[in-house]
């Protein structure tokens, strides 16, 4: 018996039967170009987003390894770096310009290109039509454009890495005047224009996608799929799209004004500046204006990243606990509350900019208010686990890891949202630890959970379990080993974005810790590469999915054929008769959404 038959059995016939029916009504020949490149099928677009996101994640992750080399081993030289990066790493050491470019691009890439486009783009596209019962998105064409604008944005951002003066280097928040004045920093020369153009394209992509997600969820739900019967993934993605549509245009305006200041001599953000001895004519602008515009997107952006992860975790946790999600309506309500509050807290990033303290007080109150819906979510997840019958699939492991990280990172938010403490902790490593745990790693965990859970739907194969377990445990342990000690650096007041602490009497006591963190970061990065390998290997060689509903889940995507074609369901779109969470009800393992409510079924 060959190893292929051990893994895959002999069921290929059954799997491919549907393909004859998939396109009934409007059968057409698919060329390579229309199937893989200019594709309008939501499932393929999801894969495009995911794979582009994975490539960006490798680049962004590699950048963090490079600057962690500098932080962890400031005295060592790595000749190999000079071989690769030339004058940016003269003598095998990362130059200051290079360091700041790396930090900036690490943030930009991971926040926007991976955790926004890669996460929302993938799972909104994959899951919306499949879970609400639609043949495709409201507009397949706009959906395709959304990906291609993202691709263009990616090309421009990638090109900026190869400019003579380097990419943007003023931090991912690109505060002017630093980002507006080429004299002030190499990274604020051509690289900054590329950054702004790329972001403008990115925002177009995000808006096209977001409008599509909203209109699809509102209009294309199948018969019986009322809003309150939707799985929580749908609610989360819906609110995410609303957040993006309302806040991204504000960043666009901020970016356009910055382009004007840079290239057309306007003074939106510039006033009374003397840079390197040169007296600039600009007067009357406000550098703080940009921060308002930036954070009006920037804060909702955090939830744009986090909400889809929350939605997927809720779904995966319920499926694998074999129990309904606890407090479905409270979960929807808390998502809604977070969405509203996300628009009202942006100035908590600006407590120490000279903001009016009275105004600051409102932002403190509204910021800490977010802890209430967050607490509701955490306790509801815990109650979902309580008295369940938990199957620890790789997706479930990541979902539980997500909750742990969300708690850890969420609680430190209570420190930073309180302006009194923010005066002390602002822009220290405490902030770095906080947002990496709660928005970075936690969202990644949500994304991994989603990939492990829906990979069988995407590619009709499973990911390798052993590699998945190694991936999970090393990443979870590694994330805590990297970011837990960083809180102590923050409590010692270490400022962010320093390439070297050795000249400081107050900050030079953490050389050992930095070396440790850098080493762990490299190991964790290597294990992410293992995941990437597992991903691509399993697309072609993974164990084949044999059953239509491998996780025993209620939602509609598992009523499609194992490999759904264009239009998702070969025949009629199924009708929905109940909510998505009838697990363990009336002694039954699970009751799919398509099953009519029985006459003697108990109410919940």
């Amino acid at each position, binding site marked *: 018996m060959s190893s292929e038959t051990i893994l895959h059995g002999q069921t290929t016939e059954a799997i491919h039967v549907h393909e004859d029916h998939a396109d009934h009504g409007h059968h057409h020949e698919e060329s390579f170009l229309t199937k893989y490149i200019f594709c309008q099928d939501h499932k393929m677009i999801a894969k495009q987003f995911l794979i582009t996101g994975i490539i960006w994640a490798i680049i962004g992750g590699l950048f963090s390894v490079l600057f962690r080399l500098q932080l962890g081993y400031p005295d060592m030289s790595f000749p*190999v770096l000079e071989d690769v990066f030339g004058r940016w790493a003269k003598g095998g050491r990362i130059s200051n310009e290079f360091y700041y470019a790396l930090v900036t691009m690490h943030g930009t890439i991971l926040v926007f290109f991976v955790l926004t486009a890669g996460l929302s783009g993938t799972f909104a596209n994959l899951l919306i039509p499949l879970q609400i019962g639609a043949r495709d998105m409201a507009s397949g064409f706009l959906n395709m454009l959304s990906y291609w604008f993202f691709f263009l944005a990616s090309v421009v951002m990638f090109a900026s890495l190869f400019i003579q003066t380097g990419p943007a280097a003023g931090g991912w928040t690109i505060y002017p005047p630093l980002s507006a004045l080429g004299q002030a920093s190499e990274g604020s020369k051509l690289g900054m224009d590329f950054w702004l153009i790329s972001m403008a394209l990115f925002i177009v992509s995000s808006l096209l996608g977001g409008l599509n997600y909203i209109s699809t969820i509102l209009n294309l739900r199948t018969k019986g799929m009322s809003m309150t019967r939707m799985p929580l993934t749908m609610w989360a993605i819906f609110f995410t799209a609303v957040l993006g549509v309302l806040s991204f245009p504000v960043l666009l305006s901020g970016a356009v004004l910055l382009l004007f200041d840079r290239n057309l001599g306007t003074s939106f953000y510039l006033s009374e500046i*003397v840079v390197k001895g040169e007296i600039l004519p600009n007067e009357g602008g406000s550098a703080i204006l940009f921060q308002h515009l930036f954070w009006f997107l920037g804060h909702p952006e955090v939830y744009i990243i986090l909400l889809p992860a929350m939605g997927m975790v809720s779904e995966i946790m319920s499926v694998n606990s074999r129990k309904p999600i*606890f407090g479905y309506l409270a979960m929807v309500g808390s998502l809604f509350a977070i969405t509203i509050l996300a628009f009202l807290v942006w100035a908590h990033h600006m407590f120490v900019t000279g903001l009016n303290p009275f105004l600051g007080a409102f932002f403190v109150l509204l910021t800490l208010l977010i802890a209430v819906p967050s607490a509701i979510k955490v306790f509801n997840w*815990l109650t979902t686990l309580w008295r369940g019958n938990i199957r620890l699939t790789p997706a479930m492991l990541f979902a539980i890891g997500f909750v742990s990280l969300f708690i850890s990172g969420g609680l430190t938010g209570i420190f930073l949202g309180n302006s009194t403490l923010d005066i002390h902790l602002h822009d220290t490593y405490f902030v770095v630890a906080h947002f990496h745990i709660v928005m970075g790693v936690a969202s990644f965990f949500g994304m991994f959970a989603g990939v492990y859970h829906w990979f069988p739907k995407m590619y009709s194969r499973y990911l390798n379990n052993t590699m998945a377990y190694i991936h999970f*445990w090393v990443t979870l342990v590694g994330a805590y080993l990297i970011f837990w000690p960083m809180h102590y650096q923050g409590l010692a007041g270490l400022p962010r974005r320093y390439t070297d602490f050795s000249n400081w009497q107050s900050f030079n006591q953490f050389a050992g810790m930095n070396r440790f963190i850098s080493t762990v970061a490299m190991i964790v990065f290597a294990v992410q590469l293992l995941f990437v*390998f597992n991903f691509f290997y399993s697309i072609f060689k993974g164990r084949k999915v044999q059953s239509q509903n491998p996780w025993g889940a209620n939602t509609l995507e598992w009523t499609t054929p194992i490999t759904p074609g264009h239009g998702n369901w070969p025949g009629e779109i199924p009708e929905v008769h109940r909510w998505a969470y009838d697990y363990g*009800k009336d002694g039954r393992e699970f009751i799919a959404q398509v099953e009519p409510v029985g006459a003697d079924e108990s109410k919940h």
Partner: protein
Amino acid sequence: MSGYFILAILALAFVVTFQIAKASEYVSVLKGEEKTFKQNNRINAFLFIVFLVLGLIAAWWCNSMYYGKTLLAQPAASDHGEKIDFMLLLTIAVTGVVFLLTQILLFWFAYKYQYTEKRKAYFFAHDNKLELLWTVVPAIFLTVLVGFGLFYWFKITGDAPKNSQVVEITGKQFNWMIRYPGKDNVLGRKNYRLTDASSGNALGVDWEDGASHDDIEATEMHLVVNKPVHLVINAQDVIHDVGLVHFRLKMDAVPGIPTTIWFTPKYTTTQMKEITGNKDFVYEISCDQVCGTGHYSMRGVIIVETQEDYDTWMASQKPQYVTVKETATPSTPVPDSTTVTKVAAANKPIAQLN
């Protein structure tokens, strides 16, 4: 060379891991997926408990190693800092309890309710009492934290006492410039278009304002212990941030928009050397807002001393106006001081605005 060696080892580790992973997948299919699933479930559930226990031990160990290296181990050097430290401890206590409770429940549930054939999951969809409980209880705790936070926030950001010493600090890439108002306690007016470091006017002071004539410019900031100080903060090129880590304070320096902050230093530099047990101790000003490639090196020094020491230091300083006038060449004439006083009287001095 060693770099390539490490890469080779990594590649080897990859191949080995992959082969093991592939083999274990075959084994699982041959052995029966059900059996393998149960085995993996038990292992992972057990690992959650191991993770919880080792994690808590590691957290304790980490604390014992690093607590002494943080600022928690030394008293705040300003009155505001003491309030912030209290607030910090209060928040650590509240969030610490929540952290322990929720993390222990999470991993304990993951272990305790792991899959067995015997158990049926308990159908439990909602419970209004429980929902109410964990809406109200966090809300109460947060109200307490917000209450304390805002009480201190308004104290810290409130008006500086009348007897405060005014000091101006200006950031530029990549150093800090300090200016004292001199005997009249009024900082002379500035106009950024007059900035000219080569002729001794790096700050762009308007010499036509008579209040500027006794202003002292310095590279180190000297402060008097137990006397409130009112910082007027400026930036010339990009946004910087005056980070005063031992005083637990920071405030952005924004070009075109002066900001302020005030505090009372509690210990002299000499006293802090004893308190911290570090003979090299020095109050440092760090730049806490990324400002370009030299951001990490933008360091300033504050010396807190007794009134006598301060007076001695101040007596040794010469007003910048005098220095400029002495070194002025005929090509850059300095305005006559009699006309200057008239102009100054017509202009409201900066320090009074604050």
